[in-house]
């Protein structure tokens, strides 16, 4: 591994570290009755309101349409995620220290799989919340489900839901991009060397 690749990898690891400090994802809801806004942040290990009582108030609103309560303590992903990111950081540091290209490739590949699985899992989680509704809910709109968008905005009855990565999430994407770039440069350099030989 070149010094450049090592530096890129270390920056990637540091970027991942921000996920412990900053929210990864932000879902906010717009409605005429909420001029002050209402929404939630997803962090590496919990979910909380943008304002202190927002999560309770979202749960309160969701009960009308029969959505399950969002209970951070009962979401397995939030328990596992700190360990997965921790592992990626440790492995990334080890790869940068050892300087073995295969370690860089492995790190990038694992991260890519984690990212894809993570987003699919997030999608399924949203799908479950949006579709698995209490049949006794007060408000039932035929054909309506309430799955928030994975990325972007979507109208759900009187609310427009917006879902975008937050700072920690953008940093994770940056880390992945750095891993991919480092791997690409490393592969390209080795190819060139081989062709020279």
């Amino acid at each position, binding site marked *: 591994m070149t010094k450049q690749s090592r530096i890129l990898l270390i920056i990637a690891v540091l970027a991942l570290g921000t996920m412990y400090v900053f929210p990864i994802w932000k879902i906010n809801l717009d409605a005429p009755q909420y001029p*002050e806004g209402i929404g939630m942040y997803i962090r590496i290990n919990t979910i909380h309101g943008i304002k*202190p*009582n927002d999560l*309770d*108030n979202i749960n*309160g609103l969701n009960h*009308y349409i029969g959505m399950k309560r969002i209970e951070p303590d009962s979401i397995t992903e939030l328990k596992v995620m700190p360990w997965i990111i921790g592992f990626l950081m440790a492995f990334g540091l080890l790869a940068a220290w050892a300087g073995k290209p295969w370690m860089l490739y492995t790190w990038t590949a694992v991260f890519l799989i984690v990212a894809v699985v993570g987003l699919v899992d997030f999608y399924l989680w949203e799908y479950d919340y949006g579709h698995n509704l209490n049949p006794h809910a*007060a*408000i039932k709109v035929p054909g309506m489900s309430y799955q928030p968008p994975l990325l972007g905005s979507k109208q759900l009855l009187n609310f427009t839901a917006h879902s975008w990565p937050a700072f920690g999430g953008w940093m994770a994407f940056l880390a992945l991009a750095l891993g991919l770039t480092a791997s690409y440069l490393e592969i390209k350099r080795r190819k060139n060397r081989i062709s020279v030989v």
Partner: protein
Amino acid sequence: MSKSHYKKLGYGLLLLLFLGVFGVSCTGTEQAGGRKDAAEKVYVAPGEYDEFYSFLSGGFSGQVTVHGLPSGRLLKTIPVFSQFPENGWGYTEETKAMLNTSWGFVPWDDAHHPELSQTDGVPDGRWLFINANNTPRVARIDLVNFETDEIVEIPNSAGNHASPFITPNSEYIVASTRFSVPIPQRDMSISEYQDNFKGTISFIKADEPGKMDVAFQILVPGYNYDLAHAGKGPSFGWAFFTSYNTEQAHSLLEVNASQNDKDFVAAVHWKRAEECIAEGKGKRMSGKYVHNYLNEARIAVSEQKDGVTVLYPSDCEGLVYYLPTPKSPHGVDVDPSGEYIVAGGKLATVIPVHSFSKMLKAIEDKAFETEVDGIPVLKYDAVIAGEVENPGLGPLHTEFDGKGYAYTTAFISSEIVKWELGTWQVVDRIPVYYSVGHLSIPGGDSRKPWGKYLLSLNKITKDRYLPTGPELAQSAQLIDISGDKMKMLLDFPTMGEPHYGQALPASLIMDKQVKFYQLQENENPYAIRSESEARVERDGNDVHVYMSTIRTHFTPDNIEGIKLGDTVYFHVTNLEQDWDVPHGFAVLGARNAELLIMPGETRTLVWKPQRVGVYPFYCTDFCSALHQEMQGYLRVSPRGSNVPIAFGTGE
């Protein structure tokens, strides 16, 4: 022509004469100085805010209303001295004690003068004070939640009118007797007024919430003490009170109290009073009074008190001076610089303006005319700075724009007169409809007025609005005072009878508003923090219902086991933790009130079952899409029945 036709003609001629004299033109366009221009100045577009909060006293309603300026829109009624069944004020267990007095529970009063707290002589947006005239009291309203949080009664008083004018750092608010009475009270002939009836001027410590108290009272001759204002800047440490009825009449005052050419402005040196009290010159006088305040659980509690420190002017030299002032003065208003003291002699032909510096010199030179009960009466010529000629008929009250001008209301000629400080020349006048009492300029009695608008608080309404039977809303009129000429902008009806208003820029208070109470900080002993704590408990014949509300149900909503002869306490906690989600509570057979419970708050309604049966209760504040489903049932069994206490929701 019939007799009534002549009568009509007569009225018509009188009206013409009236219009001729005052040059009034009655078309709306001209009154408003150009409709379009005026409309643009008062138009607050949907979703936008008014520039000022204006607090108007409710007069006989006993409350305070909050209007936005320049739109005149009513923003809120703040219940203060009168019970308010709309939200349970004065009915709930948490607020009942706020209306306790030494006379017992008093469910109403006559509230005259709102007064904003000040720092360095400028409204600071912390609190609003207001007086109760009939059962002498003053109240404090907290401007973070627009709720009355303290009321203190004033002993040895009757008709607390000259109140609650404030000193520049909110050290004291003042109070005084409009009606002099025997002090201490005793059975005696009214005809012995002259030697026996006295007035009191009270200073109430005001700068610490929950600790309002009568600091001291000054016993003064038995006149009617009407209005007041504290000095500021050079006159800091003084307060000025108007008096009338120096004739000391006790009957037919409209004639008998209107004989003297001059009555008095009492100049009270409250800094000197503090010294005299420190020197032990105050005397202890009995006098029962009650102090009500919110405890840490936001529940009103009453504290019985007896005895005040009283100063006699003869025991404390330099405490009080009388400034002769024509004639039956009403307002006494200190200009922003603190030098000029303007008195509105309601029967006077001029507005006298006293000079504070001349007053000090007159005191030094002992330029005394006479002395009344140990109070030196200063010579008029020694204290007068100038007289405003031709100020309109019946001048009452003056405020200032901070740009060198004063604005005085003239009740009889129904106009507002603008005049210049220093030259004492009238520079502009504008008719108002009809017969203005007080006026209000934001910060207009402070060191730094925001002199953009003037609100004319009129006493007579007649034809200003669509008629509503014999009783009409009192009318307010907004006048633009930003230019050389006053411009009429807007009429709007008000609640009760606003005797006075105070206004300040919205920016001083809008950002510190409480949006809801933190449930975790609710210290009401009957509060619950979740539905799982909801329950019904019997304690002898008392039944305590610990009930919660959240969109959109009560917990519990089915209650059994109540019997005739029980007293039921509904302790309702609103579990919501969001802005603008109050819930209401009403139960059939309630003879007191409903409840409005703010998010995070607990309120208690007492209910006594009268008939066997099953009775509904429901939410009275439209809270959500399923508000109409927010209800419950309560079963009432006969006396001695063995139906057990049972309760639940959704079971």
